[in-house]
């Protein structure tokens, strides 16, 4: 589904990603863990062009969607193509980024109506069922400011799902939530995983990773140091730095 090949990313002199090679298969749930500043978010955001890689290749669904060298495009994409790729990738942000001037329902319906030009009636039905799936049907006419953090994030998930993406990207989805609200979001993510959605999750929630991930990837200082099943990574890490990181968290 996703193939990341020899990806480097520098911000000026600061090298943030060094020779990243990673493959995600369809239906896989892969969790990326690591210390702050290790480049995990940057990697995720490179997939939908929120960050542009310095060099390397990215394939989505076996199609080359990015090829760059020295911060220049080798394979250039039109804005329309980029938009298409973004439609395939649903993204959930750490700070939700809901549209505050629209109701919950409007938030969910906006993108499909504008981008995919689905009929309003069809979209209404689908949106309502998505909201029901994340447990927020009764809040459909509320404005985001009236919802708790956990509720907002669940709306964000429904909004991303509305575009029927093939892959869901989660960028530290629960890091900004009060602890007691984290579970409601993780529950939604777990049920998504059960349904077979391909998910790439940057997170600090080790419990979630242990329970749901097919693979855990540990990135430190821009490099993938560890890539294995959760059992192996958590119980028997091969790298010293992995051990050090885990001991600080768990």
């Amino acid at each position: 589904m996703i193939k990341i090949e020899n990806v480097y990313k520098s911000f000026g002199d600061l090298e943030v990603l060094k020779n990243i090679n990673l493959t995600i298969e369809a239906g896989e749930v892969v969790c990326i863990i690591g210390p702050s500043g290790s480049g995990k978010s940057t990697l995720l955001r490179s997939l939908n062009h929120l960050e542009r890689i310095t060099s390397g290749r990215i394939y989505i669904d076996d199609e080359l969607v990015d090829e760059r060298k020295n911060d220049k495009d080798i394979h250039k994409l039109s804005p329309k193509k980029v938009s298409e790729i973004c439609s395939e990738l649903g993204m959930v942000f750490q700070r939700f980024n809901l549209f505050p001037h629209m109701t919950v329902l409007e938030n969910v319906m906006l993108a499909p109506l504008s981008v995919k030009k689905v009929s309003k009636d069809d979209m209404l039905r689908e949106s309502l069922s998505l909201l029901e799936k994340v447990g927020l049907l009764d809040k459909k006419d509320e404005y985001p400011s009236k919802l708790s953090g956990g509720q907002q994030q669940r709306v964000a998930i429904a909004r991303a799902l509305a575009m029927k993406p093939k892959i869901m990207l989660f960028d530290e989805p629960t890091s900004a939530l009060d602890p007691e609200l984290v579970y409601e979001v993780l529950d939604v993510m777990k049920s998504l995983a059960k349904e077979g959605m391909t998910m790439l999750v940057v997170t600090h929630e080790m419990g979630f990773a242990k329970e749901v991930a097919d693979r855990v990837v540990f990135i430190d200082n821009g490099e993938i140091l560890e890539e294995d099943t959760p059992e192996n990574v958590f119980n028997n890490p091969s790298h010293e730095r992995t051990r050090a990181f885990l001991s600080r968290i768990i």
Partner: protein
Amino acid sequence: MDDRMARVIGILIDSFIPILKAGLMYTVPLTIISFFFGMIIAFAVAIIRVTNFKPLTAIVKFYVWIVRGTPLLVQLFIIFYGLPTIGVTLDAFISAIIGFSLSVGAYGSETIRAAILSVPKGQWEAAHALGLSKFQALRHIILPQAIKVAIPPMANSFISLVKDTSLAAAITYTELFQVAQQITARTYEPLWLYLEAAFIYLMFCSVLSVLQSRLEVRFGKSGD
């Protein structure tokens, strides 16, 4: 002294309607129309700047620089008295509208640009991640939020414009203030007549201030 006051009061009473009428027939339409076109220019320029639309960005920056850097009166003079030398002769009303619209457009574009920039980056990112184009993002997500922020400074601009229109008299457009000056010329009571003109301007601007409050309420609806 009483004779003088009686005379002054008489002048004020007689002149109130003519000055008010000039305001309603000349000052108000000039203000509204100039502001309308000015806002269109301001939005267009701001969007070009924010999306960095390569072909037009340089031209637009130049326009803002020139218009903000030269006095409005000089701009009006150039349009009305200068253009005829290259064969373009426009009447006073049109010249005034062009001058004021360009002015509102230049200053307004900076206000709107700032308002757009004040919308959190995360909004752009969410829109992008959902597959919305830059223009779709602007239309549905960014501008609605930016407008809320832009209302107080733009209302300011509008209220200022009401009074700036008095410059139009310099290019033969007889509006509110010019009528006050005409009456002053005959009666030699400038202070009282200018106070009266100021009062009438105040009336117009107060209406606008109320409108501003209403607009802020309407756009602030999404619960803050």
